[in-house]
């Protein structure tokens, strides 16, 4: 996926209507524990459309891809 084609504010990891961890609406309920879980889990849901993303975890990071909104990549090694 060519990330340059995706504008940043609609990227699947950018703040949006949906929680990237539990897939619930960010306007409802508590997502504090979801935020804490980010250390232990990759993002599973697209924050823009709530689709379950295709997530590849590798030893050094993860990539999550939404079919509509592109990919979010995260390195877990500093």
């Amino acid at each position, binding site marked *: 996926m060519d990330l340059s084609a995706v504008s940043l504010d609609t990227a699947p990891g950018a703040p949006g209507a949906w929680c990237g961890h*539990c*897939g619930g609406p960010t306007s409802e309920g508590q997502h504090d524990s979801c935020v804490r879980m980010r*250390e*232990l*889990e*990759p993002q*599973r*849901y697209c924050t823009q459309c709530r689709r*379950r*993303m*295709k*997530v*590849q*975890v*590798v*030893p*050094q*990071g*993860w990539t999550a891809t939404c079919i509509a909104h592109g990919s979010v990549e995260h390195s*877990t*090694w*500093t």
Partner: protein
Amino acid sequence: MTTQVTDHDILATAREQVLERGEPLRYEQILAVLQTSDADLEGLLALAHEVRMRYQGPEVEVEGIVSLKTGGCPEDCHFCSQSGQFTSPVRSVWLNIPELVRAAKQTAATGASEFCIVAAVRGPDERLMEQLREGVAAIRAAVDIHVAASIGMLTQEQVDDLVDMGIHRYNHNLEAGRSYFPHVVTTHTWDERWDTCLMVKASGMELCCGGLVGMGETLEQRAELAAQLAELEPHEVPLNFLNPRPGTPFGDLEPMSANDALRTIAAFRLALPRTILRYAGGRELTLGDLGTRDGLLGGINAVIVGNYLTTLGRDPREDLALLQELNMPIKALNETL
């Protein structure tokens, strides 16, 4: 007889039997260790550490793992987010060969001597065997690291193919003690898993075989798993603590307590004095940083660096710094040949 006297007895017996004579604890003895009180935990961990140092030495084996094929598995292992039978958020995805090689390179850069390629399958089909063959060849051409695999239940022909590819170690866990297994998996049997383990052992590949604890099993069933592993005598035992995954049948279980996890580590070490005992999944959740350290001083002598298959691990730099602080050198590649 008070509990305390019993605790004391089993620790004294373990010291004489395992540490002095090198003879593993038997089932009833493993159970007695699992039943010891929190007051005895420190002494128990110290004994397990002495056993590890005497029979395995101070080195720690470091490994990285990666998922070649994630999710969509037809099996129903109740702890697993990769089963296609549950409404887990994990979707099916394949890793390409260049990314696989990159992961192996980055794993090797941490000083790791093992790199394990895993696939979420009942057993491999021709497509997976072909991907693996290509991936292993590409890694071996580019990186100096032992390649291990974990691709489910095998036929003898597949075992032979893995040997030909140069697979150094094969992972196939018993998952649970035989009597609890039907509560964990219904799509295949414990005996089928055992058979694959025996074929792997006979092939000359090293067998890596462990399981999970904290899945609702009784202490008897936990002791049973340790005793059955001891009977199998694998080269390595990876010990997982259940990390309850949303959407799976075990998703609502509470993670086990740190003290129970540490007692389990010590009990497994006393049951398996000469086996590599590895921290696998769930330690971040169950033990945290402090418990991780206690386990390394209580029988553990191998770790997985970096992330797991679908969840994240610690930054390898933290683990490597901890090993250095504990004066536990990383086992070098040539020592493991």
